[in-house]
């Protein structure tokens, strides 16, 4: 089966990203493929490279990054949702003349087309909501 995952909740204020992570690990372990993970609304904060949770708590952005490296996952952060919430890659930082950028290197900013394309090409879309 081809899955895509949608996450609309931020780490800490919702369990969405943590649940999606566990679901994705199980799906991959069972031999399914994950076409894309799409981070929308407050879900974009899962892509922050600056998050520094206490050592004894799950570092959700780091765990997504690790899963992405292992399984070549496509982690897409909605660009419009991200930019207004202060999650920027180098390009967007330049465009908006901001001094820094904070998108974790394993994530990509892109448009809502990536969500719709995922819906078209995947057998199942599972949303983890805020």
């Amino acid at each position, binding site marked *: 089966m081809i899955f895509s995952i*949608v996450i*609309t909740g931020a780490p800490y204020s919702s369990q969405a990203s943590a649940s999606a992570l566990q679901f994705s690990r199980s799906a991959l372990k069972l031999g399914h493929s994950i076409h894309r993970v799409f981070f*929308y*609304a407050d879900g974009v904060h899962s892509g922050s490279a600056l998050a520094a949770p206490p050592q004894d708590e799950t570092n959700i952005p780091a765990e997504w990054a690790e899963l992405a490296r292992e399984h070549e996952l496509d982690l897409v952060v909605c660009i*419009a*949702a991200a930019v207004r919430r202060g999650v920027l890659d180098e390009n967007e930082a330049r465009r908006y003349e901001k001094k820094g950028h904070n998108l974790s290197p394993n994530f990509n900013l892109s*448009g*809502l*087309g990536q*969500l*719709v*394309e995922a*819906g*078209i*090409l995947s057998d199942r*879309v599972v*949303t983890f*909501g805020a």
Partner: protein
Amino acid sequence: MSDNKKSFLIINRKAPYGSSAARDALDVALTISVFEQPLSLLFIEDGVLQLLPEHNAAAIGQKNLSANLAMLEMYDIDQLYVCSQALEQRGVRPADIKLNITLLDQRGIAALIKQQDQVLSF
């Protein structure tokens, strides 16, 4: 499923302005329509409040949702379904809504969901 077409349903359950959910849902709707996929929008619970006319969101430093709703017609998105019970509970008359909508009861909502390939909720 032929030619990579999938039918999409967007469920709108949240009131506008208190969060970005209503705007996020409409942005996805317009994008689905750009991809020329069959699309329906369902407004239930507080989602029906998005359809009230004459917003003045400048009073709280936001943009009117009605501009986005008007885009639906421009994009030929005309499958708009509204939960009649949600209107009643809130004391909204169907005539108050200026868009071309189809009222559904619970049974109709369940049937609409059943028909879809993909359902996205907001």
